[in-house]
């Protein structure tokens, strides 16, 4: 099967195109660095099947960050038959910088001139025919989000398979050209995968990977060392020459009106302003959570709850009427409906939260949030860009941690990974909701906002601590593109929302179901014991752990067991509490077993303690170290515990 890769600058619309072609539901957002890993999809054209690979965005083949390395590696080693280079028609010259490198490599390129709708409305005029001739590549105009030009692109791409290409040769000036020839000579007769001239240029560009590839040859290595000694590494001159080349070939072909004040500029005046920037950000986040609460819980939540209750009674009656075994009835009504059902009740809430987060991601505001938070982040030793991973973490910490791949600096990245779990994810929301429902029915919005604010505060404090202790190092710089504001397309908002809601449902059906089942069995054993009692196996385990939590105010065996279940997945806390207290109503049960103060300390614990297994696994993968994963699991537990104890003990002095 032929493989086709999507390559291009960040935010040029690769994933939108990928979804349009393959019908996938990959995440799209209006900020640079949404996609951080390779994704495969398939499409059929004229009865033949093709593989399409979506890659992270990159500005250059000389990768800086982890996500760029993923893209570069695929282009270099993945042997794509055709590379669809997606370029942003409103910013052609900068986008062509990557194109030039692809052409120098001799890749079989098809240019997708995307965002053509925006270029047209900005009155940018592009002579596509002549540009295509000068670059010697096919160019297709597309508008991925409007699905315009997609068929044409596929046609041209498929036709291009097997097209003979000659690497583009541009002159880097007499001096560098001579050096290129010298190195090319050394590379002659050696067996390397890539065009020799391209490799020579990469060596002069100080490309670490190519240099280490050729360094196996002692003669070449000696030559490179000599170049270094003589200070003949021409990194920056090569960039200059490439831009000269781009300016030359695009001359007269691109006409754009002098910059007029755009809507984006007007918005930015307010949203990035010194005085209003941060307050507006706080207001936006507060509104999102408040609306989530109002619509998801108060407005829609009740319906789902009664619906699930209705089904539960129906099934239970049915089982009893057919004389089903008592154990089965207990499992279905207490384990399944009491446990999994307690989680499912929160689907509307999750839907609304993800709906708003998807809108936020699609507007282009994320990059501005990073901008306004830069100075605060700088104070704790990070930089604005790290903040994006934190906002993504509000949805789920796994993609939050993944998105740190875009951080060029190792120190920034490690700290951003370690503090991400304090950004309270969607799965923890149900836990707060049941406690809010039981103890703060009137002030839910405020309590919720305070919990999130505490999470952010702890994240910033820990960032400061880590940057002073574990990861000292140079100051890093904020470099970030601010994309134009775009009206979120409802299509993509609903798709992103649905993807995450589906994840939630899947977890309810798998992990949560599994946890609840295991705990149900443990609470029925040993045979003959009073179910869900202290004497059951589960009760005994819980009672053994409970004293640890007595200083924090929730030293009951049910609360302890739930916390540990929550490490499998955070919703399991609600599922477990729901099952252990059933058939009693969960809200009633909480009121009997917690005080207002211990409810607060429990929520603090849930906010801060050990993240779920999926998150820990992600930390291990992204840091490439089991030690960091273990460190994460332990330090968060201790921090959560200490904070919960402090809240409870200090609170007890006043109440």
């Amino acid at each position: 099967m032929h493989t086709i890769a999507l390559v291009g600058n960040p935010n040029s619309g690769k994933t939108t195109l990928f979804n349009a072609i393959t019908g996938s539901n990959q995440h799209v957002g209006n900020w640079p660095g949404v996609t951080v890993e390779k994704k495969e999809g398939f499409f059929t054209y004229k009865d033949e099947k093709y593989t399409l690979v979506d890659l992270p965005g990159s500005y250059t083949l000389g990768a800086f960050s982890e996500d760029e390395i993923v893209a570069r590696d695929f282009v270099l080693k993945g042997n794509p038959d055709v590379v669809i280079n997606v370029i942003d028609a409103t910013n052609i010259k900068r986008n062509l910088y990557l194109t030039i490198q692809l052409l120098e490599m001799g890749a079989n390129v098809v240019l997708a001139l995307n965002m053509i709708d925006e270029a047209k409305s900005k009155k940018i005029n592009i002579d596509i025919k002549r540009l295509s001739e000068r670059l010697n590549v096919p160019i297709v105009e597309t508008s991925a989000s409007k699905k315009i030009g997609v068929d044409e692109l596929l046609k041209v791409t498929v036709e291009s398979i097997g097209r003979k290409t000659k690497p583009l040769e541009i002159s880097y000036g007499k001096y560098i050209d001579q050096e290129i020839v010298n190195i090319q000579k050394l590379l002659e007769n050696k067996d390397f995968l890539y065009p020799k001239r391209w490799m020579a240029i990469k060596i002069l560009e100080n490309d670490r990977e190519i240099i280490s590839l050729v360094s196996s040859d002692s003669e070449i290595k000696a030559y490179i060392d000599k170049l270094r000694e003589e200070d003949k590494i021409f990194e920056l001159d090569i960039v200059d020459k490439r831009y000269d080349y781009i300016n030359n070939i695009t001359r007269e072909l691109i006409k754009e009106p002098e910059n007029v004040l755009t809507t984006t500029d007007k918005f930015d005046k307010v949203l990035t302003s010194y005085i209003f920037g941060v307050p507006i950000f706080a207001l936006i986040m507060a509104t999102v959570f408040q609306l989530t609460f109002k619509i998801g819980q108060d407005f829609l939540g009740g319906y789902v709850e009664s619906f699930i209750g209705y089904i539960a009674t129906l099934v239970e009656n049915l089982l009893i009427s057919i004389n089903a075994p008592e154990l089965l009835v207990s499992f279905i009504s207490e384990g399944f409906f009491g446990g999994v059902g307690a989680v499912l009740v929160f689907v509307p809430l999750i839907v609304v939260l993800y709906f708003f987060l998807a809108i936020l991601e699609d507007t282009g505001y994320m990059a501005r949030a990073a901008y306004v938070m830069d100075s605060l982040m700088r104070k704790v030793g990070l930089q604005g860009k790290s903040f994006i991973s934190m906002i993504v973490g509000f949805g789920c910490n796994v993609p939050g941690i993944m998105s740190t791949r875009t951080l060029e600096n190792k120190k920034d990245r490690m700290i951003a990974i370690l503090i991400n779990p304090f950004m309270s994810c969607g799965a923890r929301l149900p836990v707060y909701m049941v406690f809010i429902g039981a103890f703060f029915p009137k002030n839910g919005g405020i309590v919720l906002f305070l919990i999130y604010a505490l999470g952010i505060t702890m994240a910033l404090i820990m960032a400061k601590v880590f940057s002073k202790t574990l990861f000292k190092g140079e100051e890093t710089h904020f470099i970030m593109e601010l994309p134009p504001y775009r009206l979120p397309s409802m299509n993509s908002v609903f798709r992103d929302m649905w993807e995450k809601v589906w994840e939630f449902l899947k977890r309810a059906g798998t992990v949560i179901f599994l946890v609840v089942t295991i705990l149900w069995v443990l609470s029925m054993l040993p045979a003959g014991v009073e179910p869900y009692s202290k004497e059951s196996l589960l009760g005994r385990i819980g009672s053994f752990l409970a004293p640890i939590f007595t200083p924090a105010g929730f030293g009951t065996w049910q609360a302890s067991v739930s916390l540990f279940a929550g490490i499998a997945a955070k919703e399991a806390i609600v599922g477990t509490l729901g099952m252990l207290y059933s058939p009693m109503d969960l809200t009633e049960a909480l009121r009997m077993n917690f005080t207002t103060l211990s409810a607060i300390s429990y929520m603090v614990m849930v906010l801060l303690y050990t993240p779920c297994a999926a998150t820990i696994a992600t930390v291990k993968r992204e840091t490439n170290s089991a030690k960091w994963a273990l460190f994460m699991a332990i330090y968060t537990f201790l921090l959560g515990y200490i904070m919960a104890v402090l809240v409870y003990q200090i609170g007890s002095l006043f109440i």
Partner: protein
Amino acid sequence: MVLTEIKPNCKCKIKNISKGQMATKRLYELGLNTGAEVKVEKNDFGPVILRVYGNKLALGRGLAEQIEVEEVNN
């Protein structure tokens, strides 16, 4: 003259970037190479916002101070 001294809405040409090689190369590749013309859109507090070719780029102040430029009159 450095980038942070340029007033909003003024244009300038990049002359030189004195900073560690990593950041410098990144900026070059983003279009802030020698001789490139950029427009300063915002320069008061916090990162500077530039217009480079067709896009807006935000640069931390510390970094912007390391970018030597030359004002362009139009």
